[in-house]
């Protein structure tokens, strides 16, 4: 079985994000970029399935600028077998990405597509679901456990109020939550070897997908700075404040 893992190049999670002075977006100049952490979990899960003998090939695919190739190399260094770069400088919105992924899925015929549940830049949480809808496949989102059987996959989902396990017929879409696994560090030799693994370069036009944004960003602003807290002398004062000032009791 093949596993397809879409990976997104995003601002590194350690970077303190700054809004551009003109409010048109966040400043990406000279900012460290990395693979979306949820996607790293997706790559890790795919590798574990291959290590367990349940998958043969792992393909990483990224829709984004030329530099998204580095993100693919990260996936290849972790253990994916080959990559596909769908090159575009346009702002990628979930629907356009899902449409491209649908075409890639039709070409590659994977048994499983594992995505991150969301990307930490726009936090959309849509691409996996949209892809499932476009393909008419089953989906198991927010996975904290993936158990691959014969023709089916059991996905334990993190839902409000607990865990839910769904059994999906393959082929299927899984999106990863934080607790699914702890992704490995690619070793230095594997990083060096990753340059020898193939990356196919494509464009959205190759798949006949129009990636022009459907949304317009009007303004980007910093979240309001948090006000300093106050210290209270005792529980009585706390309760009084919650009652009279906060009005939550």
């Amino acid at each position, binding site marked *: 079985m093949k596993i397809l893992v879409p990976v997104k190049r995003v601002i590194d999670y350690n970077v303190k994000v700054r809004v551009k002075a003109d409010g048109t977006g966040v400043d990406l100049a000279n900012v460290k970029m990395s693979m979306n952490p949820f996607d790293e979990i997706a790559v890790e899960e795919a590798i574990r399935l291959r290590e367990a003998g349940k998958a043969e090939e792992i393909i990483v695919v990224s829709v984004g600028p030329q530099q998204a190739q*580095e993100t693919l*190399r*990260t996936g290849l*260094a972790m253990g994916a077998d080959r990559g596909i770069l769908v090159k575009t400088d346009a702002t990628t919105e979930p629907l356009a990405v899902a449409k491209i992924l649908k075409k890639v899925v039709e070409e590659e015929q994977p048994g499983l597509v594992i995505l991150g549940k969301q990307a930490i830049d726009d936090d959309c949480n849509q691409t996996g679901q949209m892809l499932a809808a476009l393909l008419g496949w089953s989906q198991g989102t927010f996975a904290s456990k993936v158990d691959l059987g014969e023709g089916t996959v059991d996905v334990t989902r993190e839902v409000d109020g607990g865990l839910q396990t769904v059994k999906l017929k393959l082929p299927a879409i899984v999106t990863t939550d934080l607790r699914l696994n702890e992704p490995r*560090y*690619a*070793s*230095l*030799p*594997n*990083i*060096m070897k*990753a*340059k020898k693994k193939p990356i196919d370069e494509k464009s959205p036009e190759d798949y006949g997908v129009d990636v022009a944004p459907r949304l317009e960003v009007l303004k980007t602003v910093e979240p309001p700075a948090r006000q300093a807290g106050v210290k209270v002398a005792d529980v009585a004062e706390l309760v009084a404040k919650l009652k009279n000032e906060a009005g939550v009791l």
Partner: protein
Amino acid sequence: MSVDLNSEEQAVIGQIERFSSKVLVPAAAEIDAKSRFATLHRPALAEMGIMGMNLPEAYGGIGLSGPALYCAVEAIAAACGSTASMLTAHFLATDSLLLGADEALKQRILPAAAAGEALGAFALTEPMAGSNPADMRSTATRDGDGYRLKGSKCFISNAGEADFIVVYAKTDSAAGARGVSAFVVEPARIEGVEIGRPEETMGLRGGHVFPISFDCHVPAENRLGDEGTGFRTAMKVLDNGRIEVAAQATGIARAALDAAVSYAREREVGGQPIGSFQGLQWMLADSATELAAARALGLQAARKRGTGARYSRDSAFAKLYASEAAWRIADRALQIHGGYGYTRDFPLERYLRDLRIFRIYEGSSEIQRTIIARDLLS
């Protein structure tokens, strides 16, 4: 990051930075406070492929360029000086083999060393021969099918846990530097190697150093290259090693400066961040400039590594400047932290203690100046 690096090398450095901040930084203060031997990180370093990153692929390494290796060592030292020192002492041992040994000995030792399965040590210094190693008194005399090795070494990093020690000794006591040969000594395999207790040191307290005494038999196939080539090998190894010392100095100085910059932004005195005082701004500016200069000299030497050209003078520039600049940078950073910098709640005093040795080992600052001046006047 250096512009010299290709994209794989940039990814390698990025990964080392990440590994260092997650694995090395959290343990660094405790390694120092409890003098825990930094070899506790050996399995993690081995898994990452870091123990062999100075070697070519043919011997289990990854074939990093000189500048990439420089950046890698800088990143590790910025996280934990003791770990960097343990690692670079291992590199001195594997480099000795790479530069001085025949193919059979390289193949026997290097792949296991690169994989981190075998830890190396480099034994040149003796009680009566530090700055001038040609004064060494250890001898290796022909004895049956090998050599009788007699003598003692001191301050040998890693020796206590080393699987192999590259020992320099005289096969011809009358020939001075030309009488020095190098041997691989495997302490667990032979009788007559006594390794003492680790020294109590000011800094790099997790980079343990040991005295050793030998009265042992070494097989002839453990000799590195021909008799009499040991000194030349050691000098070439130190040309590389000094770049790594420069990289360590730069790494710790970088960590100190980063800490000073964030502290200057946050600490308020008299209602203003201390970073708004020109007195501190100029300290930070001088530190940043000296750090950049140290890195530039380090990379200049590193670029020559592996080109075949001699670069003893470039290595000496790099080590001399970086080790002295790092001291000033870390001292200013401690100053900016006020009284807190003097406490162990902050890493500044550790940085200063760890840094201090860089002006002494692998050729003191005075010896670097001597190398440079000799080169100018020759």
